[in-house]
């Protein structure tokens, strides 16, 4: 967990890569861990903003169990559907939250779950369509009682 305390060099590196990401993909990923997790999901594809919406309370009292939904604007037909939706966090010990695998039989692209949030941070959702295009949403959640800290 000590590796998650950024030293100055890491901060500079992540700011630099964040700036590059912001230019190339239109989305700003703060920590190197989350960037790496997103890259391993997208395989470096171009991420566009839109179509995806994270549905979560902006102010959370207890990070141990937070209702979190994600919806994608898609007709979910055989010709046009969402293949996968991934959820990432910025400051938990691990950047991955979940990956949902969908298909036209879902009818709608909407999934809800409950997640843990270690602290106030950003969440990123990325949807991969059947044509391979990638869409994203990003939201900040303020957490007053953190998860992962209780003994």
């Amino acid at each position: 967990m000590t590796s998650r305390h950024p030293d100055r060099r890491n901060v500079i590196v992540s700011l630099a890569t964040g700036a590059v990401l912001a230019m190339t993909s239109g989305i700003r990923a703060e920590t190197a861990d989350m960037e790496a997790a997103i890259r391993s999901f997208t395989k470096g594809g171009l991420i566009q903003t839109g179509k995806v919406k994270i549905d979560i309370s902006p102010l959370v009292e207890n990070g141990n169990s937070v209702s979190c939904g994600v919806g994608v604007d898609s007709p979910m037909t055989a010709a046009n559907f969402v293949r996968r939706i991934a959820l990432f966090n910025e400051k938990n010990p691990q950047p991955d939250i979940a990956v949902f695998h969908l298909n036209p039989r879902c009818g709608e692209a909407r999934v809800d779950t409950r997640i843990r949030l270690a602290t106030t941070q950003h969440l990123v959702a990325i949807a991969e369509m059947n044509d391979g295009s990638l869409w994203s949403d990003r939201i900040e959640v303020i957490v007053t009682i953190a998860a992962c800290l209780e003994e």
Partner: protein
Amino acid sequence: MATALLYMPKTARRGEVITLKAVFSHPMETGYRRDVAGKPILRDIITTFTCRYEGVEVFRADFHAAIAANPFISFTTVATSSGQVIFTWTDGAGKSWSETAQLSVSA
């Protein structure tokens, strides 16, 4: 120990999009906590959830440690014909638990 609760309609019309919800009783131990003696508590999480309807996988989720204890999942499917809906949870060690519901679909 492991118990599942399913929330879904018993009946639906053909072509209707129905919402299926499931809660599975499981600690989703992250592996980042320590016990009172200071020893790390080993990670023990559900890593995969699947839903099969008429023998076809209609939804799958990969979970990580950031999913809360007693994992809850809600998703949708199109009612196509009457049949069994099988929910399966698998943990990191490969152990799995299944729960079955019956869906009756009218024209």
